[in-house]
């Protein structure tokens, strides 16, 4: 199999989400450094390309008060990654950071710092969260309109790139100006790798223009193939080569020695992710009101939602939907399938996806199919247990992928190389040359 069709793994330590199981005996701390170190070191043992941290700049709320049911409370991404740089040596370190509530000069400085501190292993996962609710934690407040999020992001990323290139920046922005000259030399990978996560058409175009890798939400094979094609078309329009924008969807792996054991584990995972309270809260988001008296083991509420559009758990990144239409459709679906509330929510949740539930060999074969078809460049794995959630993947799945020739046997030096990225602009090629000449000289 050609090297081009190798898969790479990243691990996404989510920190704030509903898929991390916190009620099991095996659930470790979400905050202690030891958890982060263990997960990162396990990933590095498994030659994972990247260790990802997410970002959410306001504590999530549900129906107007703090959301209590999911794991929450995470350390700052780059502060944590700088510490992890000291206890790992090869794995990439990826910080999700948004373009609305950071300043380009500060963020450019911090990311360049992380890149040098880690010896060329840093990346920035660019997100554009812009709501005023999050803005309430920042000096500028909520200053950006929804439709401006990507034009602002694009200005922001251009400014950051200029700073990294070392040129004096005099940016006159719609919302603020930036006058700054960077002080940090380039790292062995020249600049941090750029990831993007955000699925709207504008987000995809932005990624096609500006970024190296997309952290996507398209994990099923058909879906992944379509997404690949869509991105290739968008990239072609801006003169980028086919497959030069890498794609790594988020994925959950539930694997075991046998198919039966994996299926059993699947049910255990879902039950622990979605208990009665989580199921009710999920429905509450769309009904717009507390469902305190409602039996989670009974049918969906017969009364209609009290809101026209769902407000959904704030900070969770869902879009609003028309509530009544949705309620009618869901009641019909649940009735049809004979599901109570918990069963319905467990089956509906985007994680109900069975794509990567199976025996070690089944999943290795399935992944080989993705590699063969070139559907993705890898996966960003979301472990459902912290900090042991990668153990089986590293011990049992990775060796099988290596046997099949679709997974790296060893690390290269920088994250850029580990992801198989080429430098595609003339400008950057020029800069790389200067950098490597300087390194040879020293």
């Amino acid at each position, binding site marked *: 199999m050609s090297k081009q069709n190798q898969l790479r793994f990243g691990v996404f330590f989510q920190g704030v989400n509903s898929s991390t199981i916190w009620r099991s005996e095996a659930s470790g701390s979400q*905050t202690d450094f030891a958890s982060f170190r263990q997960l990162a070191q396990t990933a590095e043992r498994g030659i994972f390309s990247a260790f990802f941290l997410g970002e959410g700049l306001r504590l999530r709320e549900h129906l107007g008060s703090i959301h209590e049911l999911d794991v929450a409370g995470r350390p700052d991404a780059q502060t944590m990654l700088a510490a992890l740089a000291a206890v790992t040596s090869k794995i990439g370190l990826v910080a999700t950071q948004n373009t609305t509530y950071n300043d380009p000069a500060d963020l450019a400085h911090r990311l360049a710092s992380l890149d040098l*501190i880690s010896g060329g292993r840093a990346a920035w996962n660019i997100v554009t969260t812009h709501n005023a609710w999050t803005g309430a*934690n*920042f000096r500028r407040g909520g200053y950006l309109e929804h439709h401006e999020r990507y034009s602002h992001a694009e200005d922001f990323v251009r400014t950051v790139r200029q700073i990294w290139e070392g040129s004096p920046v005099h940016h006159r922005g719609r919302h603020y100006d930036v006058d700054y000259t960077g002080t940090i030399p380039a790292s062995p990978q020249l600049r941090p790798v750029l990831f993007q996560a955000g699925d709207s058409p504008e987000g995809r175009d932005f990624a096609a223009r500006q970024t190296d890798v997309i952290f996507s939400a398209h994990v099923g094979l058909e879906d992944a193939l379509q997404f690949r094609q869509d991105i290739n078309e968008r990239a072609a329009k801006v003169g980028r080569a086919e497959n030069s924008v890498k794609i790594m969807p988020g994925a959950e792996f539930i694997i075991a020695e046998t198919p039966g054991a994996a299926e059993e584990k699947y049910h255990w995972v879902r039950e622990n992710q979605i208990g009665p309270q989580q199921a009710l809260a999920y429905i509450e988001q769309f009904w717009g009101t507390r469902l305190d008296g409602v039996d989670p083991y009974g049918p969906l509420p017969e009364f209609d939602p009290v809101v026209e559009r769902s407000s959904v758990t704030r900070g969770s990144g869902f879009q609003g939907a028309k509530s009544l239409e949705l309620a009618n459709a869901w009641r019909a679906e649940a009735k049809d399938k004979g599901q109570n509330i918990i069963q319905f929510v467990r089956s509906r949740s985007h994680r109900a996806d069975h794509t990567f539930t199976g025996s070690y060999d089944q999943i290795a074969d399935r992944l080989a199919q993705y590699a063969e078809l070139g559907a993705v460049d890898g996966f960003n794995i979301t472990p459902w247990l912290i900090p042991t959630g990668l153990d089986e993947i590293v011990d049992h799945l990775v060796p099988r992928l290596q046997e099949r020739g679709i997974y790296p046997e060893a690390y290269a030096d920088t994250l850029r190389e580990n992801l198989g990225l080429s430098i595609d602009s003339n400008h950057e090629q020029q800069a790389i040359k200067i950098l490597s000449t300087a390194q040879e000289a020293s």
Partner: protein
Amino acid sequence: MSERSLLLALNLDGAGNDPIESASYAQEAENAGFHAVSFSADGLLDAVQRASFSAPKTQRIALIPVIDALFTEPFHTATQLASLDIISQGRSGWILETQNEAVQAQAVGRETLPDHGLSTEAADVITTHRRLWDSWEENAVIRDVASGRYLDANKLHYADVQGKSFSVKGPAITPRPPQGQLPIIAPAPLFTDEGLQHCRLNGADVVKLNGANFDELLAQAQIASRKGAVAIDLDVYLDTATETGAQRLAAQGVQPTERAEFTGTPKRLTEFLARFAEATANPGDQRRHLVHLYPGDLRVDSQVLIEEVLPELKHSNLLAPVGNTLRESFGLPVAKNRFQEAS
């Protein structure tokens, strides 16, 4: 009661942008008995990240970044500092600066502040940090399987800071740091009646004095230490067997800083430090006082400090014990949570 009241911090900027070298200096400083190492901002890699990189490589020494309070986002710096405290298990603090310069302001599209506004701005920024660090009670993570709740919302609080130039809603996105409240060290000119306060709920813990004249510095330290913990900054160029500190200083040809400059023998430095310990000793108070050393040449001066100055200070019983946390080293009381007390 002049015994064991002195804390020593060593600035590691001399290690430049090499994190591995900086971490190895931090280890040496830890073994030698320093209480803290510091990382400042000017032109080098991010100070918080340099501190954080050294955290897993050390056990007891505190790691203190210097961070500007004017042209940064209080929500971000509060999160970063809390995270550093989590990673280092209670070994971080904050040396606050107000770099009121056009270069800093224009980098983030803002303007410099009028001088009379610095104190209140710093006070607002510190209040934001304090309230965010209290916004999670210590036991807000309950993992209660019966009620399906990971968090207890009653133990989480909005910070609701309304400063003169900004507001912050909260709560923090990071749990309460292990120290509860990180020690904040702020420069003396910021302390005013209507602005920043010393040793108050929303104030700074340590007042940092600067001045070129040693006797004046000691006199100021003596007065300030009646109220609370004190820090002084010192540039040090120490004599070695082969050259004097003064020769090294002259050879470096550096711009003088606003810090007092010490050149001379290790013995004379030890004597000065003993005088500082004497001046700040307060029988009625547990708090200890910090001398923050900026080595003229990290490699040379840290060696002299480690081999000659610290052993002598230990011998004279002047060095305070290194606490499990930086608060403990400073002798600061356990940080109570304002929200917990109210409920």
